Every structure is written in C-alpha cells, then in structure tokens.
C-alpha cells in the first residue's frame, strides 16, 4: 500500500487539547469482554522465567515492564542477575547488558564460569560460550557514568536493530549523578518505563540499597537509596540478600579445632531472592538460594548442583 500524505487543514494540537477528557473517561462496559475473559480463563503466567524451577509459577519477566534489582553492596545482585540473564538467553531471549561498573571481559569471564560450571574454564569452554552467545547476548561497552539520552538511544537500538528482549542497566547510580537528585532519578526511571513499554522489551535496573548498620537483615521495598519514585514506577522489585549471619557462623564453627559445620547451617540458604513488588502477579515473598562458589552460580537447593545453562552436557 503506497503512502499518500495530504495537508491537514485542521489544528490538530488544539483538537488534541480539546478532546483530552473524551479519551480518558470511558463507560464501564468498555471492559465487558475482558471481564468475561478473566472469569472464564484462568490467568496464565507468561514471560521469561528465572533459572530455578521453584520460581516458574511465581514470577515472570514480561515485555514492556521494568524490574528493579536492589541489594546491599557486595551482596551479589549483579552476579545473580548475570546468571538470570544467561537463563533468559537459554530461553532464546535476546539480552543486552550495559554494565557501567565492569569491563566487558570481566562480565564475560563471570558468565564463562557460570556456563562452564567450574572455577577454571579452558579454551573449549570459551569457544562454546561464544558460539552459544552469538545472536543472543550483546554488551554495551561503556565504563563509568553515562548520559541518559545516550543510554536511551542504545536501548532503542538494542530493541529495534538487535531485537533485544531484555536490557540490563547496571546500575542507576552511573546514570543519574548525585544520590540526592530525586527528580533526576524519577525522570530516569520514568524514561526506562516508557522505553520498555514503547519498545516492548523488559528492562532490568540494578540499584544499590541504602547502607545499613546491620547487614543481617534483608533490605525491604523502601531500602533503595534515593527517591521513592523509583520503587513506585517499576513493575517488579527483586532484592538480593546474602546470608552474612550464616557465613559468620560457619567461620566460627570452623575456628574451633576439629570443628565441623552443623547440618542446620549447611541447610540454611546462602542467599535470598526477595520479591517485594509484583504489579501484575500475586506472589510476593522470598526464595532461598545456595551458592556454588566454583561456578559463581546460585542453585535451588543445598546440594548446590550448578545448572547446565547452555546445554553443554546434552
């Protein structure tokens, strides 16, 4: 169909202003079909899954939404999100990672251990990862602070030209200068929400939690540093919390000559992934995760069996 463009003699801007109320107020029966559909068909969870089967019926990552990944410095949020991103790629979702705190090689090195499932992956593992990642994983090569308009252009490019389904922004503090620039933070998160919606991709935003005196308690929904508008605008909030009390107790147990780690400590999770907000789902709660230090993977139970993310064994 050929495009024909004609002059528009009407004042479209004035028409838009005049008709604003007409667009926003609708009769209740507008939603009749949707209401009928909602009672006749059970709500089906859709979207990309986390790597752990026990979460598949609890939370998903849909296009058009934004998830905030928060946690205290050093509690492993970037590491865990890296594993989650690999899991998305394994579901044939295209991912683009913008890590302003790590060089691309460092990001890939961590991914290499996570996919090779060991501490010292060899050349074959590198080649296997690179073949697997082709057409699935992209990295935005930018260290340090970034201008928000430049990042928006990259997200648009990743979506439109690369077909990215997920975009990781690590972290907010590298995009908005000043922890007290609340308006800047609000505008930035608003921009991410608009980009996610308009370009139909899921944006994952990493954000540091406020420094706490006591790291033994998991940070809550309102523990992220900066503006409350950040948590208000995003669709989901995931908090990564490292079980530091367990680490201390293990250390204490091993300090005793001939001491061993009690079973209840072995069984206690090394980390918790807490869902503090789930706008389009019902579940809010936490799951325990166990860390497999050789592969830098978080696993679903205390056996600590790393997942074969890229199907090396198959």
């Amino acid at each position, binding site marked *: *169909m*050929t*495009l*024909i*463009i*004609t*002059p*528009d*003699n*009407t004042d*479209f*801007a004035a*028409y*838009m202003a005049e*008709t604003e109320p*007409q*667009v926003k107020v*609708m009769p209740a029966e*507008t*939603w009749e*079909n*949707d209401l009928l559909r909602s009672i006749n068909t059970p709500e089906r969870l859709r979207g990309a899954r986390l790597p752990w089967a026990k979460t598949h019926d609890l939370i998903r990552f849909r*296009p058009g939404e934004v998830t905030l990944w928060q946690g205290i410095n050093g509690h492993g949020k970037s590491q865990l999100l890296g594993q989650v991103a690999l899991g998305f790629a394994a579901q044939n979702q295209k991912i683009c990672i913008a890590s302003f705190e790590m060089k691309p090689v460092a990001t890939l090195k961590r991914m290499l251990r996570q996919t090779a499932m060991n501490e010292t992956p060899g050349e074959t593992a590198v080649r296997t990862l690179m073949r697997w990642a082709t057409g699935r994983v992209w990295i935005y090569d930018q260290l340090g602070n970034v201008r928000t308009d430049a990042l928006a252009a990259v997200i648009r490019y990743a979506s*439109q*030209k690369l*077909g990215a389904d997920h975009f990781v922004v690590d972290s907010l503090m590298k995009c908005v200068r000043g922890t007290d620039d609340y308006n800047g933070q609000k505008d930035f998160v608003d921009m991410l929400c608009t980009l996610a919606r*308009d370009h*139909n991709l899921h944006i994952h935003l990493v954000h540091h939690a406020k420094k706490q005196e006591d790291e033994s308690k998991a940070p809550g929904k309102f523990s992220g540093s900066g503006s409350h508008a950040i948590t208000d605008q995003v669709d989901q909030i995931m908090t990564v919390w490292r079980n530091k009390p367990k680490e201390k107790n293990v250390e204490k147990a091993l300090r005793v000559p001939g001491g061993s780690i009690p079973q209840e400590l072995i069984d206690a999770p090394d980390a918790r992934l807490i869902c503090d907000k789930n706008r389009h789902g019902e579940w809010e709660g936490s799951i325990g995760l166990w860390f497999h230090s050789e592969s830098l993977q978080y696993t679903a139970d205390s056996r600590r069996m790393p997942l074969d993310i890229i199907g090396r064994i198959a």
Partner: protein
Amino acid sequence: MTGHQSIVELRLHHHKPAEAWVILHDRERPTFGSFTQPETLMHNQSAPEVHVMPEEVVGTLDFRFLRGVLVHIVGLDKDRCIAAVNRVAQFEPAKAITAGQDWLLGWKPGIGFIDLLRKQ
C-alpha cells in the same frame, strides 16, 4: 499500541496520511524487523500501520490521530474489530472498514455501520 507516534508527529506538522491500517493482535505480540517497524514504515513510503497488542482493551485506546483518515481495521476476532471501529468512530475518521474471515463492515460518519457483504 505501536505505530501511532509517527502519525501524531506528522499531524502536529500539519499533514496526515490519507489512510492507515489498524492491526489487532489477539494471541501473540508481533515481532518486527528493521523494515517492518511500525513507527518507521512511512519512511519507506508504506502506508502507516498501528499494531494493537493482545492485552490492550481497544475501547480505551486513543485513536485521535485517525481523525479525517480512511481507517482499515483487521484482526481475527470479529467482536474486537467491531469494538475497534466503534472506538475509532468516536474520533471522526473519514471512513472505517473492518474485514476478517467472514465479515466486511464499513462505517461512515452520519450513516454508521454498513454490512458490505450483504450489500453486494
């Protein structure tokens, strides 16, 4: 909904497309390539397309950018297509036509719906 922003932009610059397509997706969200991105279709001399996603309620959509434009509405669900015509009609299009597997309906200002299959 995607594809509408380029039409709004055009209209704010005192031009309008003679016609536009509204495509209702009922099951899965579409994926677009470089040449099929709805917002850039007009750059390639193609008629503009506005894609409505499965989760969107057509009766709530802002179709003001279709005022005075000939609108073609297509989809798999007849009820949803008719709901889209009704919504578009609220914003004074030049004419609206919806077609599907077993229907061909027109809408004209001052006349309303016309069953084009029965007329023939």
